[in-house]
């Protein structure tokens, strides 16, 4: 362990598409899932993360390194998170929310969820279906009834012509 040897311990994480990543243990244990593995002594070799692909894991590790380099200052951490998420597209955010959930990283989870919610503001029903790959399982009658019940919420919605 790092504390005993005095040198930083490095962990090797493996994505589900077999990419390998080296990351400092002190940053990686922001993930409760990884921390539990380390504490259980299962982190000796390569840590397989079966639910995260390489592209997403690379992003998450960038975040882990970035946020753990900031001393305990909630304001600075928050502005780092905002900046980190500001250039991510919707698909990346959706992958990251799943990864953050799997890795049990509450701070990233909260930030990504909030960011996705912010993107969803004033969006149309069609936009949500398309972006989240959701199939409409209402019959036309059922859908008309649900829409009718909340008719006023369809006012002031962004038009549905964006990709």
């Amino acid at each position, binding site marked *: 362990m790092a504390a005993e040897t005095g040198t930083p311990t490095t962990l090797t994480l493996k994505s589900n598409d077999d990419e390998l990543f080296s990351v400092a243990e002190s940053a990686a244990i922001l993930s409760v899932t990884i921390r539990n593995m380390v504490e259980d002594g299962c982190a000796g070799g390569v840590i397989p993360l079966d639910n995260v692909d390489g592209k997403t894991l690379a992003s998450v590790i960038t975040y882990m390194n970035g946020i753990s380099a900031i001393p305990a200052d909630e304001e600075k951490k928050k502005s780092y998170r905002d900046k980190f998420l500001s250039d991510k597209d919707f698909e990346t955010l959706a*992958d990251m929310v*799943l990864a953050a*959930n799997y890795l049990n990283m509450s701070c990233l989870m909260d930030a990504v*969820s909030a960011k996705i*919610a912010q993107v969803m503001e004033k969006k149309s*029903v069609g936009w*949500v279906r398309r972006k989240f790959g959701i199939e409409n399982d209402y019959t036309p009658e059922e859908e008309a009834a649900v829409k009718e019940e909340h008719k006023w919420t369809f006012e002031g919605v962004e038009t549905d012509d964006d990709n």
Partner: protein
Amino acid sequence: MHQLPVEIWEEILSGLSVKDLLRFKSVCKNLNSIISGQHFINLHLKKSISTPSRHRIFMPRDDESFRTVEYSRDLQGGGGDHIDFQTLPRPKEAIGNFVGTCDGLVCYLDTITMRICVSNPSLRVSKTLDLNVNRRYCPALLFSWFGRESSDDEYKVVLGIRSYDGKSNCPKYHMHLIKPFSDNCSSRKSIREVDGRLELIWYFGEGILLHGIVHWISYDRVMHTDHYVMFTYDLCLESVGEISMPVGLHIWHGVIGVIDGCLSAICNVYRGDFAIYEVWTMKEYGVKESWTKLMNLSGRCDDLISASWHLRLVGVTDDGDLILSCIPKHHLLIFKVAEKKFEILTSNGHWFARMFVESLVFP
């Protein structure tokens, strides 16, 4: 992309406004069932209460609508009068006396029909409940409270009603405790006659909840001379009581509220020949010796408020500044504690302005 599990959906959706959520019920059956579920409704409410940017100020209007305004974005930083008020339709049953607001719900008592209306204007749903008070005996509402108390998380309405029994000219005083959402009819309403203490109450007002007890400031008609007391009603024990106001203050007019977790009073006090506003707080609950003066509100307010006005504490901001409504001018004011000065949030305010969060809570 992968389907998201329910807990992730809940996390994401809890960051959305009520209007967006109601619209997204049309996306698919799964989202509809998540958004309609009690677990999500509570999560969304909890998140709204703990997120300052979602705190709004609610103002009834005399016409057919309610207005709400986002406090932090629209009013802070010189919103002036170019404020983006959001208008919510007012249900036609929501008439009469404003009883209170809690968790996005608004409660009214129609004193002509003696019916309570609890409405969620963001959902556009409301519910009415007949009080079954005999109108022949001229019932009059003395004071009221609506809210949720944390011990059982149930919404409750408390009403103090004066009526005559038709036999004598002596009025009777009753406390009504109503649980408008209770499924159990026998515990939904409880009424008890209160002894002469209620005669003291001269001042109509909305109660303040603290430690499971509702407080009203009242003027002691028996003692006369500047004597205010706090009348209390314990929601658990269903018992009435009294708490003293600061000793030796000559109060011309006072309002109560909660500042920093303590019962507090904004008193218009005679000092020498003129009256000024002072904020007092009861450091130790129920201990009258612990009343402590927090500050004066008189500094540099001459142009904005007059000592003859009535102020009401709407709420306290995260920075500890006081939001106040006033009459006869319908301003909404903020008292910046650090700078010791008043600013006008809007001159288009309302006496019954209240802190408010939108919610999915179904009345």
